[in-house]
């Protein structure tokens, strides 16, 4: 079917502003992606999948300006023993990064990977699979035009986490990064990500997890108020493998985080969680699609949003259980805590089930601070402001507790606490 002219035009305007990186093993995948973007067109406000989030500023040729956050706080994860990799406005910073070498892990950069590379068989593959049944053109655009990214292959238990820091220095930067992670049989990696990355950031990450592999992902998106981000994770899980991802989002005028999970091996486990806190001009969208296509797999989606001063939260989460995916255990919860009457939460939970022996539950709520709890805390002498903060942290707890590492949980909680207390002045 031909694209509506207006959509075709918007797509071509955007494409005209980009250069397709030439040469290397990724060339064919990039050209394929370019053709796919042209065919499907970039998102517009008329698309059902973008009903609650306006995509225009993510699609327009230039990144809207985003001023830099001034803060003297230390960055999150600075205390973690890790292998550090830094990108500044989407450009790799060798000076600030550690050597890309660690036992059981091979790390290359997309921009300078050798001609023959394992990632050739993976780059864009999961992204392409993730286009059905719902199209995700921004991820395809990313596959075509990503200027850099990490290609991480893990063959054993990584001795320490890889920590990627995305610094933002230019008010008009427009960054496109694409990572490919391959967790081999029984291998294990923790990936930490933090920072605003750019004025506008398009990030795609493909994670292939072989049988028995374990991948932990914890991310804190940068606090620069005017930054925009469209991110997508595509993952496929083999037998008895584990994928756990948690995202903290504080501030950002526009964020769309997509996560597409395919459970293809029996007994695999996938958890995806997010906690966000937004104040004022803040729009945060979590869009998740989980496909169960094997026996006895477990998936959990836990998303919590704290919204105030007219902030908007969106959740679109779907569990698709294919025929034969018996003994599926699917859980989905999306909740918002609205701290005033100006803020809003839009949720579209979906279940589509073709197997008859499954347990799937989903719930979505919007609410205010629990008055009983507030009175309880105040009756113990805690003032209304700090008591409200404690209950807010309590509200986010179910999502934060999805992080297995207790120290990181504490770190996330203390960041949220600081964010809340700054708002009380």
């Amino acid at each position, binding site marked *: 079917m031909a694209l509506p002219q207006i959509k075709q035009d918007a797509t071509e305007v955007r494409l005209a502003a980009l250069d397709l990186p030439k040469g290397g093993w990724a060339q064919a995948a990039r050209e394929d992606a370019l053709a796919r973007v042209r065919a499907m067109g970039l998102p517009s406000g008329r698309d059902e999948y973008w009903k609650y989030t306006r995509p225009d500023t993510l699609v327009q040729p230039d990144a809207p300006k985003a001023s830099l956050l001034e803060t003297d706080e230390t960055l999150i994860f600075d205390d973690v023993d890790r292998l550090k990799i830094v990108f500044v406005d989407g450009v790799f910073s060798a000076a600030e990064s550690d050597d890309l070498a660690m036992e059981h892990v091979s790390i290359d950069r997309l921009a300078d990977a050798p001609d023959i590379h394992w990632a050739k068989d993976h780059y864009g593959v999961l992204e392409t699979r993730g286009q059905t049944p719902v199209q995700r053109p921004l991820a395809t655009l990313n596959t075509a035009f990503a200027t850099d990214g990490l290609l991480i292959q893990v063959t054993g238990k990584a001795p320490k986490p890889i920590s990627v820091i995305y610094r933002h220095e230019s008010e008009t930067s427009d960054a496109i990064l694409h990572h490919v992670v391959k967790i081999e049989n029984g291998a294990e990696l923790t990936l930490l990500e933090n920072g605003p990355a750019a004025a506008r950031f398009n990030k795609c990450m493909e994670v292939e997890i072989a049988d028995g592999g374990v991948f932990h992902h914890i991310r804190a998106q940068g606090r620069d108020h005017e930054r925009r981000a469209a991110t997508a994770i595509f993952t496929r899980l083999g037998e008895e493998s584990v994928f756990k991802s948690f995202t903290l989002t504080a501030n950002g005028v526009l964020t769309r985080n997509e996560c597409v999970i395919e459970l293809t091996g029996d007994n695999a486990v996938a958890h995806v969680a997010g906690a966000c806190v937004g104040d004022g001009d803040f729009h945060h969208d979590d869009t998740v699609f989980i496909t169960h296509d094997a026996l006895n797999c477990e998936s959990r989606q836990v998303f919590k949003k704290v919204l105030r001063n007219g902030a908007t939260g969106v959740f679109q989460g779907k569990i698709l259980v294919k025929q034969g995916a018996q003994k599926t255990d699917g859980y989905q919860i999306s909740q918002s805590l609205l701290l005033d009457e100006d803020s809003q939460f839009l949720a579209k939970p979906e279940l589509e089930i073709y197997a008859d022996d499954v347990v799937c539950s989903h719930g979505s709520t919007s609410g205010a601070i*629990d*008055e*009983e*709890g507030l*009175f*309880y*805390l*105040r*009756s*113990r*002498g*805690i*003032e*209304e402001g*700090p*008591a409200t903060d*404690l*209950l807010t*942290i*309590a*509200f*986010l*707890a*179910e999502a*934060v*507790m999805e992080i297995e590492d207790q120290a990181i949980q504490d770190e996330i909680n203390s960041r949220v606490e600081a964010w809340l207390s700054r708002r009380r002045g």
Partner: protein
Amino acid sequence: MLEIKNLHVKLEEEDKQILKGVNLTVEAGKVHAIMGPNGSGKSTLSYVLSGKDGYAVTEGSATLEGADILDMEPEERAAAGIFLAFQYPVEIPGVGNMTFLRTAVNSQRKARGQDEMSATEFLKVIRAKAKDLQIDAEMLKRPVNVGFSGGEKKRNEILQMAMLEPKMCILDETDSGLDVDAMKLVADGVNALRDEGRGFLVITHYQRLLDHIKPDVVHIMADGRIIKTGGPELALEVEHNGYADILAEVA
């Protein structure tokens, strides 16, 4: 210590009078018990004194050591020395019991112009007090009241009371949902806090609790008023004859 005069209270949302002229004075060092049938206004009295929303005082006063408490926010009342042990302690997921207690203790100290307690000092004090109430380290770490049994919740209330060292302790049906052993443990905790400078108001349905926490004065409340006041023997009378005789007597 606590002086309540002619207190009239109605529900804010509906025009329903709950307290219809309560007069009560609790002296420092004394334990007063309030007994009464369901719906007599006992719990309302405890909520109004601690500052819960939803009640309107239409007449009368309540003072703690001469200070009007009805105009204070709940946290100000707490800092002034009022403590309510809840009938149904609230669960607060995601907030560790220890964090909660330390925040509470230090908030009150700050409000009173005292120095905050250091983490080490706090830990030392809470460990000793928790031990007396058979509250283990695990229970201190867990989120406030989440997954606690009925007995654990009540012991946790008493632990909070012990840590906050209030002047005026109000216990709202602390015996509800407790077996005999748990009740004894809670009562021991309360008794350990009895001293010259502290008043207690113990609200209960049953005389049972008063075997363990011996009251100096017993009041019978019915239909929003205190209708009879006496010594501990009054509680025994209720236990044997129920409220019917007393209600008939004053009618």
